C-alpha cells in the first residue's frame, strides 16, 4: 500500500509538471496577432504586471462583478494557498522558524477553505444562471476539494495521524527511498484525492491558473500606435503589402 502511494505521487507529480509545462509551452507558442488588451489598459510592462497581480492576488475583476462569488472564491483560494505553504513542512527536513510560526494559522485556513468551497457549491446548486452553465465535472471538483479539506481537518483536530512518519514518507519519495505510510483511513483518502487532483489538473478547467497570465485581454501593453505589433504569420502577409509604398 505504501509503495502504491509512493508510486502514485511520483506519477502524479510528473503528470502535473509535464502536463502544465506542455500547456504553458503551447500557450506561449500560439501568437497573439492583434493588440487586444481590454482598455483602459496599462501603458507599460510594469503596469501590466500590476494589473495581473491585482487579478491573481485580489481577484479585482471578480470583486467588481459579484461580491458573493468573490468572497467565497477568494476565501477558498487564499486559504488553499496558506494550507499549501503549511504543508511544506513535510518536504523540508529542517523546518524554518517562519514556517513553524505559521502553523497555527493553518488550522483556521482549513476552515475558511471549506466554508469558501461550500459557499461556491451552494451558489452553483441554487443560482439558476450558474446551475445552467455547470457540468457534472464542475460539481465534482468542488466535492473533491471539500473532501480533501475535510479529511485534512479531521487529521488535525479529531483523529491525529503520526505526522512524523508522514514526513518520512514524503521525504522518502523525494529521495526515491520509499518509506512506510501510516495506514489511517482519513490520511489515505486525503492523499489519494490530492494525487487525483494533481493528475487531472493539466486536463481540466484548473488550467485557469496559467490561463490567467496568458490572456491577451489582460497581459498586453496598450501601445499600438507607438509600437508596431506583428505576429509571425501576419508578417508573411506583410510582404504583399510592402509593394504599396510612396514613390
Amino acid at each position, binding site marked *: 500500500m505504501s509503495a502504491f502511494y509512493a508510486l502514485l505521487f511520483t506519477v502524479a507529480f510528473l503528470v502535473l509538471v509535464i502536463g502544465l509545462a506542455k500547456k504553458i509551452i503551447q500557450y506561449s507558442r500560439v501568437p497573439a496577432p492583434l493588440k487586444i488588451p481590454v482598455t483602459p489598459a496599462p501603458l507599460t510592462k510594469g503596469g501590466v504586471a500590476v494589473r495581473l497581480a491585482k487579478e491573481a492576488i485580489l481577484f479585482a475583476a471578480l470583486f467588481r462583478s459579484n461580491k458573493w462569488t468573490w468572497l467565497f472564491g477568494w476565501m477558498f483560494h487564499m486559504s488553499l494557498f496558506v494550507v499549501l505553504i503549511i504543508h511544506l513542512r513535510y518536504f523540508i527536513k529542517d523546518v524554518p522558524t517562519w514556517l513553524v510560526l505559521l502553523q497555527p494559522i493553518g488550522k483556521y485556513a482549513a476552515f475558511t477553505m471549506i466554508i469558501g468551497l461550500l459557499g461556491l457549491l451552494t451558489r452553483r446548486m441554487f443560482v439558476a444562471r450558474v446551475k445552467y452553465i455547470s457540468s457534472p465535472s464542475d460539481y465534482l471538483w468542488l466535492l473533491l476539494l471539500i473532501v480533501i479539506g475535510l479529511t485534512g481537518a479531521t487529521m488535525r483536530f479529531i483523529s491525529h495521524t503520526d505526522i512524523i512518519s508522514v514526513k518520512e514518507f514524503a521525504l522518502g519519495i523525494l529521495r526515491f527511498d520509499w518509506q512506510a505510510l501510516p495506514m489511517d483511513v482519513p490520511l489515505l483518502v486525503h492523499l489519494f484525492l490530492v494525487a487525483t487532483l494533481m493528475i487531472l489538473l493539466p486536463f481540466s478547467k484548473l488550467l485557469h491558473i496559467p490561463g490567467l497570465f496568458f*490572456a491577451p485581454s489582460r497581459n498586453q501593453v496598450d501601445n499600438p500606435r507607438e509600437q508596431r505589433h506583428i505576429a509571425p504569420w501576419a508578417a508573411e502577409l506583410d510582404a504583399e503589402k510592402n509593394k504599396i509604398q510612396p514613390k
Partner: protein
Amino acid sequence: MADFETPKFREYPVVPQIKPDAMAGDGPFVSRAEFDTDLGYPGELPENWKEKTLDKMQDLLGRYRSLQVFMDSCIKCGACTDKCHYFIGTNDPKNMPVARQDLMRKVYRRYFTFAGKYFPGLVGAVDLTEDVLKEWYNYYHQCSECRRCSVFCPMGIDTAEVTMAAREMLAHVGYAQKYSNQIIQKVYKIGNNLGLPGPALKGILEDLEEEVEEDTGVPVKYHMDKEGVEALLMTPSADFFAEPHIDGLIGYGKVLHELGITWTVSSKASEAANFGLFIGSYDNMQRISMRIREAAIELKVKRIIFGECGHAWRVAYSFLNTLAGPFDFLDQNYPIPQHILEVTYGALQEGKLRLNKEENDHLTMTFHDSCNVARASRMGNKPGGQFDIPRAVIQAACNNYVDMDSDTIKDATFCCGGGGGILTDDLMELRVKGALPRMEALRQVTEESGVTNIAAICAICKSQFTKTLPYYGFEMDAIMSVHQLVSEAIVMTGSEQEKELDGVEDEEGTKEPEE
C-alpha cells in the same frame, strides 16, 4: 413595428430570470454565394463541412492565443452571466457570455481535449452536428462583440474573440451573415458600406459647403480626393447623409477649418468602418485597411484623422499600424492615426477654438460610451482618455451635462444593442431587446436630472438609437453627434456668429470709436 414586445423597464435592481430558448431560431439572413466568394468564402455548405469546420477550428486555435487560452480557462464561476445586454433584454440563457462561449467550447472539448474525447458527459462535450452549426449561427449573431463580459471575468475571457472565431468558422462552411458580407463587398466594389459612388459623394460634399457658408459666412471646404492637403479624413459613410451623423461631419469640417488644417476625404476609401472585424477575418480586415494606406499615399497627405465611429476607431487605433503600417511616410509629430476628438480636445486645451456654450443651453446632455472606443481603444496619452476627452469636449460645448449610472458608463458601458454586425433589420427584435439596459439608464437621468439628449461617437450607435429610442418612448432625434454640439457652439474667425457676439467691425477691422 414588428411582432415582438418591447421589454418593460425593470424595477431596479433585479436578478434576471432565465427563459431557455427565448431567442431560439434561425438567426439573421444567411449570405449568398455572390457576396461570399469575393471575400474568400465558399458560399455554400460543402459536403465535408464537418471536417472543414474542425480544420478551421484547429487553424484558429493555432493562430490566436486568445482563442486557445479562453477555450481552456473558463472556471464556470458565473460572474459574467448577468453582464450581457442581450441576456438582460432577452432572458435567453444562451446569451449569457459563458453559455455563448460554451457553444464552441463543448465542441472544442470533444475533439481537442483528453477529457472531452473520453468522458464527454462528464465535462459537457458534444459532437459537431448540423444542429450545432445552426445554433452557433443563431447565437453567435446575438453577440455584438462589445467586450463588456470580459471586464467582469476573473480570467479576462473576451467572448468577442470567441464570437469572431465562430463567425469565421461558419463563413468557411457557407454560413456567413448576409448583412456583413454584403457590406464588405460594397466596400470592395464601390468604396464604402452604403454603396455611395464617388460622384454622389462629391455632390453631397458640395451641398454641405454651400450650407455651411450660408449659415456662417465662412467658406469651409469639404474636399474629396484633393491631393496634397494635410490630412485624410476617414469617417463612416453614414456621416455623409444620415441624421444625426452628418451634423457631426459638418462639425469636423468647421473645427479643421478653424485650425487651418486642410483635409480631404477619399472616394476610394470613403469609409472608416471595417466590418472585417465583425466577421473575425484578419484577411478581410487587412484588405479593407489597405485602402486607407493606398489613399493616404495617393493623396500625399501627412496625417490620418478618423471621424466618430466606434469599431472603426478600434481597428484604427489598435490594429491599423499592424494591418497596414508602418506609416513612416506620414508626419510623425501626430499620433497615427488620430481621432477627431483628440484634435478638437487638443485645440481646446491650447485655447485655439472659441465655443459659445449658450447655443446649446436648451439641451441637457448625457454621453453614451461606445463599446469599441471604451473597451478596445484609447484617446490621448492617458489610459481612460477615451472617457475623459469626449466628456470634456461636450462640456466645452454645452453648459448642462449629466452622466448616467456609473454601472452603465465608461468601461462598464452597455452596448447600444446594434454593434458587431447586428445593425440589420432582420435582427430588429434582438436590437430592441438588447437596448434595454441603456434605455433604462437613460430613463433614469431623464427623470432625475432632466436630461434631454444623449450624445455618441459611433455611427452604429447613432443609427441604432434613432431606430430604438421610439420603442422605449423617447424621441428619435434625442441622439446627437458630439461634433454636432461643437458645430452648434463653434465661433469661427470671421463668421456671422463672431460678428453677432463681438459687434460689427468696419472694413479696416477696427471698431467705430464711441462719440
